[in-house]
């Protein structure tokens, strides 16, 4: 076994191995919703679901795993304590990870057998005298030396600062060598081309040094290259600080940067995000496991101890302990290298440093309480949010000062759109593993429009059945994920059970599930305190309504629905489910309503003549261009294609999640972190649509 723990197999370890094999907790990549959407029930197969890699024994990989997600998975794997194991379902190998211990296909029976096999292997091989070492290639760290007072002084070797003569202090960092601590691309840089800038205020971000530099999105100052910060956070601060306009002010600003930088560079979460290639590799706020090279727990302890001998004792300085902002004191205490030395040096040079001085230049949030801001990744592998969604919150205490969504799941599918028109629907169906039916239909509709083919009513009815069933399955999966996020165990478990059952059944025979679904939908609104929990979270009032589609729009009172103009739907008496409120509660209500409504549509469409879901025959030398739209479970998806002689030459896709991802900053900024996560989850973002 690749993930064996070092040690000779004694009788006591034999017993422990048995226990470990029996008590299997799995961390799922990308996420458990995708597993359930494939009709698999990991819990029925004997797996518990871990919420952090630290508590997992098994890494459960479910295809597709794009490269950047694979990098995150390798970090997750390194975070898992040994013995650890990898089970790959529907995917054979993932770059950056050791070869899976067991590979199986997407099938419940196969999964159950695979879990038994994993158990057998763990029982036999949990301990091994020659446990292989796992090196993460996604994240490499190195030590650089920085002046505690002049953050611009960064050297690859120890020495003293040319400006003030202070000893340089070591800090660990990620990524390529650079002369400046802030030179690494920020997550914002990755996201710059992302569409979330569409609705932004063009003056939303500004440079702390150059107020004239304004931008709609986070990024770099064109004048000095410093990271841009939200304008709201600097207005009064800048006005107050810059009046004297002296170099001393400059110095203070730089110091604020070193405080932020110190935490970030030493804190593993930030470090991960500062890395260029592996910018989003850190799945979690956890550090990269030191033991990736260590061999045993005792080794870990010893290594840690020896490396941190300088600051394993409690920090001596009392003024650090009374820090009002946890993050600042955290920095000073934890990252003893920088923090303690800073304290000592400043004590030598200038005496006691007051809290007022320490917090003077920190960015201020609306409540005016100065706190250190830290970038914390909530993804791409964060249980509770869609797997693959790479969300980073800049936390000001436990409030969100800034939110950034980046493209972790980019698979470069655009390159595959061109090709034979006959296979185009199959290729487009791969866009989102959760809604293949809707995208296949979208491609077919576009091709049929190009060809000018009329759709047979029986086929239209069959399509309604399939698409509406997919909507039900999708909403149930969302409810399971959402229930887990808000901590309602009953909601999470019941929705998950129905999700798996619905995914297995398919639109053909929903019979036995109808009653259970209707009861479930009727019961969810009666969950105690659910309304209070969700009311007012993620309110879409004031955002660009153009960005909202599907359930998100309909929860805000906008009856936008691609099904409205469809004659086949009109014949079935369709009307969209619309609520007002525009918050997480309204979105939940809309999705619940849509489960019922889609169930009605499926049943109504079933009563009509049945037909195979086969596309109308298209001419072999089809040429032309056309657009089409389908109401996917997340909202209207548009497609514009050009076809020449039976070959698709151009395809432009307009999925709903792109606009919804652009809503994230507006919906989360200023919210408490749990509320911000609820707001993001209520959008039901598809990371696959954000990064096709």
């Amino acid at each position, binding site marked *: 076994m690749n993930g064996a*723990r070092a040690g000779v197999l004694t009788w006591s370890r034999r*017993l*422990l*191995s048995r*226990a*470990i094999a*029996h*008590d299997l907790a799995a961390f799922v990549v990308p996420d458990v919703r995708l597993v359930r959407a494939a009709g698999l029930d990991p*819990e029925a197969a004997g797996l*518990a679901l871990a*919420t*952090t890699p*630290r*508590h997992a*024994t098994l890494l459960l990989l479910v295809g597709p795993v794009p490269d950047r997600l694979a990098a995150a998975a390798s970090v997750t794997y390194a975070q898992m*304590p*040994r*013995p650890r194991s990898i089970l790959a379902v529907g995917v054979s190998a993932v770059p950056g990870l050791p070869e899976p211990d067991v590979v199986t296909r997407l099938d419940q029976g196969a999964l159950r057998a695979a879990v038994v096999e994993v158990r057998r292997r763990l029982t036999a091989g949990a301990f091994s005298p020659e446990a292989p070492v796992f090196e993460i290639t996604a994240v490499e760290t190195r030590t650089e030396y920085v002046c505690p007072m002049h953050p611009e002084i960064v050297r690859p070797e120890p020495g003293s600062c040319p400006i003030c003569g202070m000893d340089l202090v070591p800090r660990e960092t990620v990524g390529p060598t650079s002369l400046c601590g802030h030179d690494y691309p920020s997550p914002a840089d990755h996201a710059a081309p992302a569409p979330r800038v569409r609705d932004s205020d063009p003056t939303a971000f500004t440079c702390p040094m150059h107020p004239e530099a304004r931008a709609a999105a986070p990024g770099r100052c064109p004048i000095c290259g410093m990271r841009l910060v939200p304008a709201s956070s600097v207005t009064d601060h800048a006005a107050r600080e810059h009046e004297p306009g002296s170099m001393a002010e400059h110095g203070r600003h730089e110091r604020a940067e070193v405080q932020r930088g110190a935490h970030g560079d*030493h*804190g*593993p*979460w930030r470090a991960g995000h500062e890395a260029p290639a592996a910018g989003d590799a850190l799945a*979690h*706020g*956890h*550090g990269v*496991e*030191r033991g990736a090279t260590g061999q045993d*727990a005792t080794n*870990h302890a010893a290594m*840690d101890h020896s490396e*941190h001998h300088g600051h*394993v*004792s*409690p920090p001596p300085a009392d003024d650090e302990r009374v820090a009002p902002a*946890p*993050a600042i004191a*955290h920095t000073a205490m*934890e990252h003893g290298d920088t923090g303690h030395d800073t304290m000592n040096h400043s004590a030598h040079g200038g005496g006691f440093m007051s809290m007022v001085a320490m917090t003077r230049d920190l960015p201020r949030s609306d409540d005016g309480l100065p706190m250190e801001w*830290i970038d*914390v990744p909530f993804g791409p592998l964060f*249980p*509770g949010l869609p797997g693959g969604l790479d969300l980073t919150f800049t936390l000001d*205490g*436990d409030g969100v000062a800034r939110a950034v969504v980046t493209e972790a799941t980019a698979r470069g599918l655009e390159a595959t759109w061109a090709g034979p028109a006959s296979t185009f629907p199959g290729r487009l169906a791969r866009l989102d593993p959760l809604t293949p039916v809707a995208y296949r239909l979208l491609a077919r509709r576009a091709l049929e429009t190009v060809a000018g083919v009329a759709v047979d009513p029986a086929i239209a009815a069959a399509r309604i059945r399939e698409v509406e069933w997919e909507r039900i399955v999708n909403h149930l999966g969302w409810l399971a994920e959402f229930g887990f*996020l*808000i*901590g*309602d*165990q*009953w*909601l999470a478990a019941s929705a998950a059970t129905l999700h798996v059952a619905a995914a297995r059944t398919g639109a053909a025979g929903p019979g036995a599930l109808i009653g259970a679904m209707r009861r479930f939908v009727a019961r969810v609104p009666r*969950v*105690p305190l659910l309304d*209070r*929990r969700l009311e007012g979270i993620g309110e879409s009032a004031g955002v660009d309504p153009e960005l909202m589609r599907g359930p998100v729009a309909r929860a805000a009172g906008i009856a936008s629905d691609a099904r409205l103009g469809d004659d086949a739907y009109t014949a079935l008496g369709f009307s969209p489910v619309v609520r007002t409120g525009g918050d997480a509660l309204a979105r939940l209500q809309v999705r619940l309503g849509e489960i019922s409504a889609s169930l009605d549509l499926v049943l109504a469409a079933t009563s009509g003549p049945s037909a195979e879901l086969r596309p109308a025959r298209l001419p072999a030398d089809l040429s032309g261009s056309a657009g089409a739209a389908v109401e996917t479970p997340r909202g209207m998806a548009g497609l514009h294609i050009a076809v020449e002689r039976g070959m698709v030459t151009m395809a432009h896709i307009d999925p709903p999640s792109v606009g919804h991802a652009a809503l994230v900053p507006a919906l989360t900024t200023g919210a*408490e*972190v*749990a*509320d911000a996560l609820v707001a993001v989850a209520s959008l039901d973002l598809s990371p696959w649509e954000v990064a096709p």
Partner: protein
Amino acid sequence: MAVALVLALLAGAYAVAVLEGWATTGRFRPAAPLIAGLALFGRESLVPRRPDRLLFETAPVLLLIAALLAAAVLPLAPNLVAVDLATGALFVNAAWAYVMVALIMAGWGPDGAYAMVAGWRFLGQLVAYAMMIVMPISAVAMRAESLATTAIVQSQAGFWNVAAQPIGFVLFWLAAMAVAFLPPFDLPTAPGTLAGGVAAEYTGARLAIFRLARLLLVVTLAAAVTIFYLGGWLGPWFPAWAWTGIKTLMVAAAMFGGGRFVPRIRVEHLLQWSWKLGIPLALLNIAWAGVTLWWVDR
């Protein structure tokens, strides 16, 4: 006696672990906690990259100590109590106060953002629940005219405090769930939003200590509900210790079961309800206790 008490406490923790597994997975597996515990000792116990080593190492142990100290003054039977302190009801509060300290240490120690947010969040939770623990106990002590836990049980010989002070019972019950951070008050672990929170960085043997400590904490809180409100060892047929045990486990089961159906409480709602509703109710409960005692005396 000491051995008997320790064994009883461990048996209680084991039973509570089985109950928790039953409530969360829906399956009754009596061997699961044993296997899970062994498995934890078989896994590596990792130290995060840049921990505050002292806080990281001591937090689970402190949580364990807090639970044990609380257990020391809770009587299983009239003569089956580790320390029959004259100020037992006060002492148990003091012991629980260290739960907050331990969780903040566990949040701070590993240098992880999730853990840190979770640790500080529990401080907010303490501000919400602290008065709901102390004030109902005051009313209970008024009736017993003593702070000794054994005297409080004996004072319920006529009828239990749950009937005498129903408001206090409800408040204390909810506060007890908040102390033990059981759902829906699991803000410091918050599986869906903070990926395990304060426990997120603990693995192997350290996690085993953390989990054992939490189970013992649940036992002490369920036992406290039993002793303060449900007549402790009082009951027919069975021996005294059995009654305390049965009631404690039923309280724990009800705590686990009830939390399943409610979403996690938002921290600001918790504070709002606690200060705007809970404290006035707790004062009313004390007044009610005074009035009823005066009336009975008359």
